[in-house]
């Protein structure tokens, strides 16, 4: 582990930010076209973020700032672990890759906790409601997703992302999206939940709770939350690509898969309304969980894999 590894890690986080921000902008344009309009410039998201960073914000006390720092720190840290392809990876040592799956799940939660803390620290009830909804949504999507991942790890015997990637790329193995179709579908639905896309976008919901946790943020704190959001989307979509789409052998493959997954999620999002929060919970604990468990039983106890 040398300083180079850490620099690569920071580079990956930065790359993730730039990638997702650009693709987010392109997606805004695509969605604009779908909505019969011109859409913004593709680099609009960059302009938004830098504008926010340039403004003079308000602060509601030290926890309001500290939470944002902790959140962004957690997310940047998580992104540093993310492999882009099976070779481009920051922390690797003599063939041992330190990109255990659970790091992503739990280090992401640090970001969530920081943001939740900071939002509640603003003393605004809307923000607290938004946090409550975000946490409840997390409770909903996390369990089916982890069950699918349990199946994958159990089947492949690997819990590092690069290991899972290599397992899928090995001759004779299919992508897990194909090998475990039910699990793949559940994974995608859960990805929509993670990204906060439309049927599950209960915690922003401007018309109900006035943009939820973000209600008191402006200026640099909001800018940092935007950066956080972009990077966390990068992490979540990359997770899906690596877990279900066989990862990537080179960076272009990664970009193509990434773009496809994100755009599909975004398009589905834009023709749907949003559920209520308890509907989100019941939804995830009905079909996706059932499908995930079925898939797990099929794979683990019967060993049937396509």
């Amino acid at each position, binding site marked *: 582990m040398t300083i180079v590894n850490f620099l690569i890690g920071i580079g990956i986080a930065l790359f993730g930010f730039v990638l997702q921000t650009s693709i987010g902008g392109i997606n805004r344009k695509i969605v604009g076209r779908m909505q019969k309009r011109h859409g913004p410039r593709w680099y609009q998201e960059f302009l938004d973020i830098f504008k926010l960073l340039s403004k003079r*914000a308000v*602060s*509601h006390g030290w926890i309001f700032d500290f939470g944002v720092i902790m959140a962004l*720190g957690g997310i940047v840290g998580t992104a540093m672990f993310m492999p882009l392809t099976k070779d481009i990876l920051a922390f690797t040592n003599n063939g041992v890759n330190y990109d255990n799956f659970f790091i992503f799940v739990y*280090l992401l939660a640090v970001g969530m906790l920081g943001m939740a803390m900071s939002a509640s620290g603003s*003393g605004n009830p809307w923000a607290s409601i938004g946090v409550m909804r975000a946490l409840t949504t997390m409770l909903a999507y996390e369990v089916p997703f982890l069950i699918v991942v349990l199946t994958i790890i159990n089947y492949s015997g690997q819990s590092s992302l690069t290991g899972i990637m290599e397992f899928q790329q090995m001759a004779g193995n299919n992508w897990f999206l194909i090998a475990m179709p039910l699990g793949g579908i559940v994974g995608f639905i859960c990805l929509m939940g993670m990204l906060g896309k439309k049927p599950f976008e209960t915690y922003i919901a401007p018309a109900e709770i006035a943009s939820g946790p973000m209600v008191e943020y402006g200026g640099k704190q909001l800018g940092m939350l935007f950066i956080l959001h972009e990077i966390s989307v990068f992490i979540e979509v990359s997770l899906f690509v690596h877990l279900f789409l066989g990862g990537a052998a080179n960076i272009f493959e990664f970009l193509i898969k990434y773009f496809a997954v994100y755009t599909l999620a975004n398009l589905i999002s834009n023709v749907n309304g949003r559920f209520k929060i308890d509907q989100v919970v019941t939804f995830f604990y009905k079909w996706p969980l059932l499908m995930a468990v079925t898939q797990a039983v099929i794979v683990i106890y019967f060993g049937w894999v396509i």
Partner: protein
Amino acid sequence: MASIELLILFLVGAGLIAYLLTKVNTFLGSIFTIFAVMFVFVSLAAYGFNMNMDTVVNYLPGISFSQTYLGFYFAIIIVFVYLMVSFFHPYYLNEYKYKDSYNLLFLLSLAGILGAFYTDNFLNLFFFFELIIWTTMFLIPQGKSREAAVSYFGFSVAGSVAMLIGIFVIFQNNGNSFDIATGLAALNGTNAIFVFILFLIAAFAKLGSFPLHIWLPIAHGNAPHPFSPVLSGALVKLGAFIGVLALIRIAPATGLFVAMDLPIGQYVVALLGSASIVFGTLMAIKEDDAKKLLAYSSMSHGGYILVAFSILNGLAFAGGFYHILAHALASAGAFMAIAAVARATGTTKMKELGGMIHKMPITYLAYLVAIISMAGIPPMGGFISKWLIFQAVINKGMVFVGIAVFFGSVGSFLYVFRPLAALFLGQEFREYKGVKEAPILMLIPTFIIMGLNVYTGVFPAGILEFINKIIVELGYTGITVSTYAINGSNGILNPALISLVFAIGVAIAFVIFIVLKKSRKVDLMDTYTAANFVHDEHLLHYSVDFYAPLERLYEKQSSWMKKFYTALAEKVKELGKLGKYLFMSKNVATTLFWIVAIIIFLLWGEVL
């Protein structure tokens, strides 16, 4: 060489001195208690790690000691929690009705704990258990609730009775010897299953695990504020100890699940542990009292420990033992933070509190660190143990246990956040304008526990190596640990690296934050209200029914267990009435008849 016997005798003596001192001056007595516990902790820590304790018995007849890594591990954790909590005593005792005896009972229960973990004799074990139960039972009602003491005692007695019967079975089985090691080894066949079940009942009762959990929130919620950390961080672990005896040492040969390579008995315990996790999580999400909430969280974590010990391999055991430590630290930290808040404000109800962070920032940090560990998020100790347990569960392919384990892991995030949001964050209430940070003596343990929480999360290697010794002692192979990395069955974890990367991330974020324009500081009430004016900060504090939409989904189902136990209690009462009717009737002849009949039945029942 520290003699375990002398330590116990010292504690008893110190208890008496503390009693006298407390009678004179509570502060003096409490300080003496701190030093007494500290002495025990230091001697235990100095000699215990390498099994250098003196186990020779000179003064106490009929009692014998031996030392094991397992016993020492539990003992040191519990003594440590006792030590930390004793720092709180000077500030709380004055509120209690029987403050004189508080320190005495406190030290006596510690003596019981030392004895229980160092004895090699079942009867002694039972004796020390009863000592713990009886002393703590008198400590709990200082919180002014009789119900709490009764339910705690009732469930503990149920556990003890189960254990006693188990001990008798072993006694009979092992050629009339109470020796633990040989007794457990000699068990086999039906007897083993019988003892397994009986010991598990004891373990479940002490651990507050799924079917026997009712006492936990009642006792925790009503216990004195400084005693709750002990109850949750230390005493509950007694159940884990018995659980280890039952699940690993006895491990009866029941049928095998081929798919998971696990005995049915163990699998059932794992499922019960899962139920405990899910149930504890759901109830904690619903709870309004911060201490009861944490009590339910103890129940859920007890479930994790059971799950870990019922998966029979070294990885899971490492997770389980590590979880005992991590949870003891985390729940002690959380309860202590709540206790500090309760001392300042006089309540632990979340709906009455808000904005304490502006008054008690260090307490807030202590709570934050504790809950991060409790929720299993890096870089705290809880992450390591949960990671190990997850590895074991995934490796075994236990899907249904997996649901519960993951549910509890995410759910813990939900419920630990509630006190954080309701007590510490949110609007600052005007009735707590004068509240100040906890005094320095209370901050010392707070800092220590904070530091240990982080230490266990960043450098687990040393502790895991010690745990490996326990696992080897139990007859399984330990896990591979290098200086920084932990090898799981299907992956490798480097906690120090994670923490470092997290620190780098925070540093980057901090740099971004600090180079940008400085924020304008505004008041908490100057907040977005859709352009309306609000003058009462209580109206802007969201703390009641926090997870209302989620709670509504299981509202109807949540009271089943309580109803069952209430019905059971009613039945017991009726039985008592029947007994009263039979024995306490005015007719002496009837009473005499029944007494004689029962004596005859007891004495010659087998003949008849």
